[in-house]
């Protein structure tokens, strides 16, 4: 019976570290995700602080220094077809590209989550109305839809943002609806309803916390698609207009130089590729880190 003498009070008070500290711990053990995050931080940081980096003016060209190759004196990454410094244009271009890549997804995340959670929780007729309307947008390929809306609204940054937001609302709504109707059928939602809580309270306390992380991870994976679409719009001339530096637009204007200096012409494409790859790997890493039961 000596064992039974162990004082119960001596058992240390078990404190759970909480959900987010667990996520952070799992992320810290994932070098690929951390590497991608570092690259993205560097890209976003350099874009944000571009004016203070001592770069050349991205708008001033030189007729004598056109299409200098990578590694030329004074222009580490060469110059474009109007003799503007490529490094400066790539970094300044990151500002616009990342902005157009992120803002529509953030807007669509809020609007789509709202629509999807409402449809999934309320169900019935409202669900049918919202989801069938969303289905109409799925009839068009996203690229075509973005081009059509942008074309109708006219070129310009704001119009690109609007058209890309509209393109991304349907997929986010659909994911939000699927996740919410899954959670809606669980007993803890019934238990919460049985307390007499209003639908809004049940959604706020019991639904949102359990559906937002999968929706958020999905939305993160859309940012790379959005960047590519934005670049595509600029490439087609219905997004950002010259002389603004933007990766898609730069890819377009440099494409005629591809026979002169293919490496130089590919640089904006490389930026798009690296950024979207990092965003995808990061969202994969965050998704697995958010999985509680592993």
């Amino acid at each position, binding site marked *: 019976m000596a064992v039974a003498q162990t004082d119960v009070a001596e*058992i240390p*008070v*078990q*404190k*759970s570290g909480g*959900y987010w500290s667990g996520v952070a711990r799992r992320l810290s053990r994932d070098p690929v995700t951390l590497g991608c995050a570092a690259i993205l931080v560097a890209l976003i940081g350099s874009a944000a602080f571009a004016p203070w980096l001592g770069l050349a003016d991205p708008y001033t060209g030189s007729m004598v220094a056109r299409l200098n190759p990578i590694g030329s004196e004074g222009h580490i990454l060469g110059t474009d077809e109007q003799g503007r410094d490529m490094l400066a244009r790539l970094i300044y271009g990151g500002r616009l590209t990342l902005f157009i890549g992120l803002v529509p997804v953030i807007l669509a995340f809020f609007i789509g989550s709202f629509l999807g959670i409402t449809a999934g929780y309320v169900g019935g007729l409202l669900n049918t109305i919202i989801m069938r309307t969303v289905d109409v947008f799925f009839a068009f390929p996203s690229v075509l839809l973005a081009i059509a809306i942008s074309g109708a609204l006219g070129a310009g940054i704001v119009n690109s943002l609007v058209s890309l937001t509209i393109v991304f609302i349907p997929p986010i709504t659909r994911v939000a609806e699927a996740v919410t109707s899954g959670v809606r059928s*669980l*007993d*803890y939602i*019934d*238990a*919460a*309803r*049985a*307390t*007499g*809580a209003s639908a809004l*309270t049940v959604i706020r*306390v*019991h639904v949102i*916390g*359990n559906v937002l992380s999968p929706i958020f991870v999905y939305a993160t994976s859309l940012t790379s698609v959005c960047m590519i679409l934005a670049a595509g719009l600029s490439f087609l001339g219905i997004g950002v207009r010259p002389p603004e530096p933007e990766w898609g637009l730069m890819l377009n204007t440099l494409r005629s130089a591809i026979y002169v200096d293919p490496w130089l012409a590919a640089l904006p494409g490389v930026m798009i590729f690296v950024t979207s790859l990092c965003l995808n790997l990061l969202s994969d890493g965050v998704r697995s880190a958010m999985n*509680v*039961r592993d």
Partner: protein
Amino acid sequence: MSATETLRPDSPAQILRVTGLQKHFPVRGGILGRQKARVQAVDGVSFAVEEGETLGIVGESGCGKSTTARLLVGLIDRDRGDVRFDGRTLGKDLTLRDLRRGMQMVFQDSYASLNPRLTIEESIAFGARIQGLSDPVGRARDLMDRVGLDPARFAQRYPHEVSGGQRQRINIARALAMSPKIVVLDEAVSALDKSVEAQVLNLLADLRAEFGLTYIFISHDLNVVRYISDRILVMYLGEVVELAPVDLIWSRQAHPYTRSLFSAMPSMDPDNRTEEPPLTGDPPNPINPPSGCRFHTRCKFAEAVCARDVPVMRDISGGQGHLAACHLHDTASGHSRAGEEGLT
């Protein structure tokens, strides 16, 4: 089935009185989603529960036990029927919100019935907070203590960090946090290990005595129902077929369906094995239930009258509260063996 025969006369002791409760789920199909058929999940269920009593509801899967529970708590809307709680009728002088404060539910799946993102303390305190009761967190901690979980060790844990038995204790505490008069336990101990099940059953019995609770205890396990219940209600295909005090039904099962349910229960004594063949076949489809007595397709006493006339609940014990809906117990029914002794 006629509604009133199931009921004892209205008395002030009755805390809950359900009359003619009905729920048919639409089956939709086709492009336009038109209603093709109706699943008659609960069809005319009536019963009354007295304060402090435990009513056990038994029946095989799909007989409408859980639907009845959810209808009582108002988680699904009833098509028809009256629910009278504490002398007030739901929809008339009783709001759903008030009903929910007075009647709480414990679910079978202890994990799915707790929000994985809330700590145990938050889960228990939620209902009290919603109903505006004083000091929800203090209440939660008291109740955790009462159901045998040390608040200091468990309050800040998450549901996946505790065992199944502990989770079910949390669910019970959560239901009690609203100070309800009735707790509906829907297969609340069915998913637990036998030893844990016994602990939780004892806890439920203690809590009933301490808080003066009334239970509606739904289970498919007859032994568990016998242990905790005062009266047993047997359901088949959405209808009540028998309702009786535990002792009476244990010594004599009046309805052939109840009889086969009891004979399917394994005996602890190898010399006392049942000779009666168990009930065969699946229950009929509740979309298109059999005419007359719904059990006649599987009943060995079935005759033409059983397929034709719906039997009503009638007292077969001379006023001791043993009711059954079977033509065998109605000499006026036209069944050739009606009133014969020793059949059931």
